[in-house]
């Protein structure tokens, strides 16, 4: 489901690696669109979850010694697995599907469920299960002896006490937090008791053993692959769920063959998720760079959202190249072979003097791997040196990136960098009504230093109208 080529082709190891072919991107976008619908995504999520549990159960059962215990786990696994396959088939048949990937899954599963072998397996398992459910015994538990016998008609003591004490109870009873059995698996005494139960009522246990012997293997490999692939798609979609719910646009980018970059409603995925979780608004920006504009500088006040804006641009390229949805309302993006980053990293304490050297070495390795299809993002590069040095080094870096035909975005406090020829300047937007507030929005325009004044009472929401509005909320 991860690429053209049919069910079962696994690429789990390379999931966020940029795809080389535009059609591979489109293939995944189609699947994402199908799974983004609650009905379809829910069906596959349920299937993937259940199959994971079934596989874990079987693994555990394989280590068990007592047949009557082990076989029961296998029987339960069979039951859950087949029920999950049947509801997957049912759910996908009812779902409006458009993608090549999910349609292939639907056809595969529908054929399986319709087969006589599958139907008889389900019937056998259900019959065996019902027989076991009918087993009930009486245990007389002394201080050194347990006696198993058929059930008699004797009253439930808990019920008697509950009804006597009902008059003193108030509110909901809290469950009693006691441990009963210390082991997850059966202990030897329980196994001995179970052996007596088997002796008392042998038939249901014989039937269970026949049933599981007749229906191996429990999990078909192709179904396991479908579950794994679906889990990846759903994990990616889950990143975006709270953002969509908060009204943020999440789009599937078009690929720009000419290298242009256009995005609206762009935001930083990580920051957006945090702000939405805290119930706060997310500021979105636009970016538009023509095919020949291959070098941009982002300026603005500190803590004004520059790094997040740069991150958002990087995420846009990485996710688009992996065929994933992007944190933007709409986007046209070049298909990159990678995004290389120069982000300031906290330095090890034992190497204070070598910080610049380490950074330059990292950049050298980065430039060696840079191709015309690479995007380089630099965030306050060369912060360990003087501004003059940093400016010169940054120009060198951007020139080197340009010589390799790659595109570059630099976040910087060096406003000269934004004024260079051939560089597009993107600056933080200033609110003319209140220059003190940070807008966290960015637009193309010249870099200009921002003033900070304090209009405090208004800032704290203590004006008469604001106060009244808060009380009346």
């Amino acid at each position, binding site marked *: 489901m991860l690429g053209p080529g049919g069910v079962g082709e696994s690429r789990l190891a390379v999931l966020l690696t940029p795809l080389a072919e535009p059609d591979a991107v489109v293939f995944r976008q189609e699947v994402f669109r199908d799974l983004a619908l609650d009905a379809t995504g829910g069906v596959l999520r349920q299937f993937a979850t259940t199959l994971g549990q079934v596989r874990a159960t079987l693994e555990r059962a394989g280590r068990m010694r007592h047949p*009557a*215990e*082990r076989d*029961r*786990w296998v029987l339960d696994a069979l039951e859950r697995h087949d029920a999950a396959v049947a509801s997957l088939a049912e759910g996908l048949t009812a779902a409006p599907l458009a993608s090549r990937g999910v349609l292939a899954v639907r056809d595969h599963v529908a054929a399986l469920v319709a087969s006589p072998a599958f139907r008889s397996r389900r019937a056998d398992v259900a019959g065996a299960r019902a027989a*076991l459910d009918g087993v*009930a*015994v*009486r*245990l*007389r*538990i002394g*201080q*050194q*002896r*347990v006696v*198993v016998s058929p*059930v*008699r008609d*004797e009253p*439930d*003591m*808990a019920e*008697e*006490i509950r009804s*006597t*004490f009902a*008059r*003193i*109870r*108030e509110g909901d*009873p*809290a*469950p*009693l937090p*006691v*441990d*009963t059995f*210390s082991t997850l698996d*059966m*202990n030897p*005494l*329980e196994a*001995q*008791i*179970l052996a*007596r*139960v088997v*002796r*008392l009522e042998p038939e249901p246990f014989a039937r269970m053993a026949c049933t599981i012997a007749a229906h191996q293997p429990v999990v078909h490999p192709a179904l396991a692959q479908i579950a794994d692939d679906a889990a990846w798609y759903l994990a990616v979609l889950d990143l975006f769920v709270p953002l969509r719910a908060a009204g943020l646009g999440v789009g599937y980018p078009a690929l720009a063959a000419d290298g242009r970059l256009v995005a609206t409603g762009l935001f930083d995925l990580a920051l957006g998720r945090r702000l939405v979780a805290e119930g706060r608004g997310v500021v979105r920006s636009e970016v538009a760079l023509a095919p020949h504009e291959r070098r941009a500088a982002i300026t603005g006040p500190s803590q004004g959202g520059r790094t997040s804006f740069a991150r958002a641009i990087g995420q846009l390229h990485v996710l688009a190249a992996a065929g994933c949805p992007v944190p933007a309302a709409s986007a046209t993006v070049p298909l990159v072979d990678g995004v290389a980053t120069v982000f300031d990293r906290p330095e090890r304490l034992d190497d204070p003097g070598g910080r610049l050297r380490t950074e330059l070495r990292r950049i050298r390795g980065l430039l060696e791997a840079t191709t015309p299809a690479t995007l380089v993002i630099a965030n306050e590069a060369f912060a360990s040196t003087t501004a003059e040095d940093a400016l010169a080094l940054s120009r060198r870096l951007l020139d080197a990136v340009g010589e390799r035909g790659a595109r570059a975005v630099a976040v910087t406090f060096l406003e000269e960098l934004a004024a260079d020829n051939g560089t597009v300047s993107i600056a933080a937007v200033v609110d003319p009504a209140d220059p003190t507030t940070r807008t966290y929005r960015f637009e193309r325009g010249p870099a200009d230093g921002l003033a900070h004044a304090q209009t*405090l*009472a208004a800032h*704290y929401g*203590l*004006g*008469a109208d604001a*106060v*009244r509005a*808060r*009380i009346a909320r």
Partner: protein
Amino acid sequence: MRTRVLFPDRDVVLDALPEPDPDLVLDLELERLFAAMAGGDERVAGVVRRVLPLGVRGGPAFEDPPTVEAIRYRQSAVADALAAPATVAALYRLAADAVDAERRVWGGALRNAELVLRRSLEVLGGLLDALGATRDLLGSERERLGSAAFRGLADRLADEIDDAFLAEARTQLARLADPDLVATSGLGPGNRASGFVLRRAGDSRARLRDRIRPDGGRGLTVDVTLHDQNAMNALGELRAAAVAPVAGVVAESAAHLIAFFERLRDETAFLVGCANLDSALGAAGLARVMPEPLAPTETGIRAEAIVDPCLALAVRGLVSGNAVDTVGCPLTVVTGANGGGKSTLLRAIGIATLLLSAGMPVPAAEFASCVPDGVLVHFPRGESGRDDEGRLDAELHRLRALVGRVRPGTLVLLNEPLSNVNERDGSAIAGELVRGLIAGGAEVWLVTHHHELAASLHATPPAPTRFLRAARGEGGSRPYLVTPAPPLVTSFGTDLWAGEVEARLGGAPHSGLGGERPA
């Protein structure tokens, strides 16, 4: 079983009550009040510090203001406690002892169901005895405890805890002492025995037969030898699993009874606190009156000879009361002399309102007030170690948090807000704040030195407003009287300087300063 001693519609579960607002405790000096109520009993101290500031509020999370009915319900229970303090104290003792006895047998965190069952049986026996004793005490003191709260509790206990119930309960508990367990089970996950139901085995003859021919010779017996420790442990686990449902019911029943006694203990603890406070205020020679809650449509306060009880408890008899009438006025502005009793009056009003909301008597000759939706205070803070801008920032921060908690009907006591700022800015910010609060439906008492603020509120009041002024007594003495009067331009700091500083320094301007200053 419900207690309903303090609220008509709920029992007090102490942990579920919100912590008191720390600003309220600090600025109104409530710790003194709590200490007088506790009378040295830590349990009472813990209860009153949560119950008093909360008031008789309603709603699932105490979000609704006290109703007049709820206040009257509480007032009559408090009146019982003031009239019969020994009886209420005996009830408190009985409940507290029942809970403490339980603690001794219960011990740590038991995880084995059979041990839980054995302990629960022990505990339940004692609790049933205490329950009978409580019923009997309330029955015999029926005449003295005439409030709806105590009458209701007495009736419920008389109805529900009859002798037949106590006998049946004890019989059932005795049955559970049999070491031979009989249970039924089915097959659970992995075919483990599960779904245990403990059964009452038939008569003694059937049980004897069970013992003699345990399995009818069909090889269905498992014997465990004492020295096989693993098997004995497994048998213990099996027994625990079999008794778990019954242990759950018994422990749950014990827990319910303990919870009942905890609630009864905490509710009567509050009443014990009310009786303690009443006798302390009486000993300080103060009048107390059960206040009259005004209908929700009213605003304002009417009081005669109202005093700050915390100050009275501290200085013993040196305080004189004020008369106040702000009925119909959502805004009260207090101006006037430094040391003229403005803060004291503000505290007295705040505390009296809290006492009213909690159904308690008020230290005044007469007190009637609307019932506010909570009391919020803003008093000056040191904001130490900050520069001017930092101090202002910190105060604005506090004010923003305060505004976030105001609701229509909240009583907001502002004591010299924005006094760290110059008069112009402070007046502007505070004026906006006060007008916003009034427009939002809050009730505001404002003490201020900012003349511009008082003058602007006087010139264009946002609502009917009462202006009070700390009076300047004859000859510069301070009688702590605050009377209706519009704001004056000047304050009386120079007077105070003359009285407090120069007067105490005596004739010689430099006496007491030693030889450091040139004569």
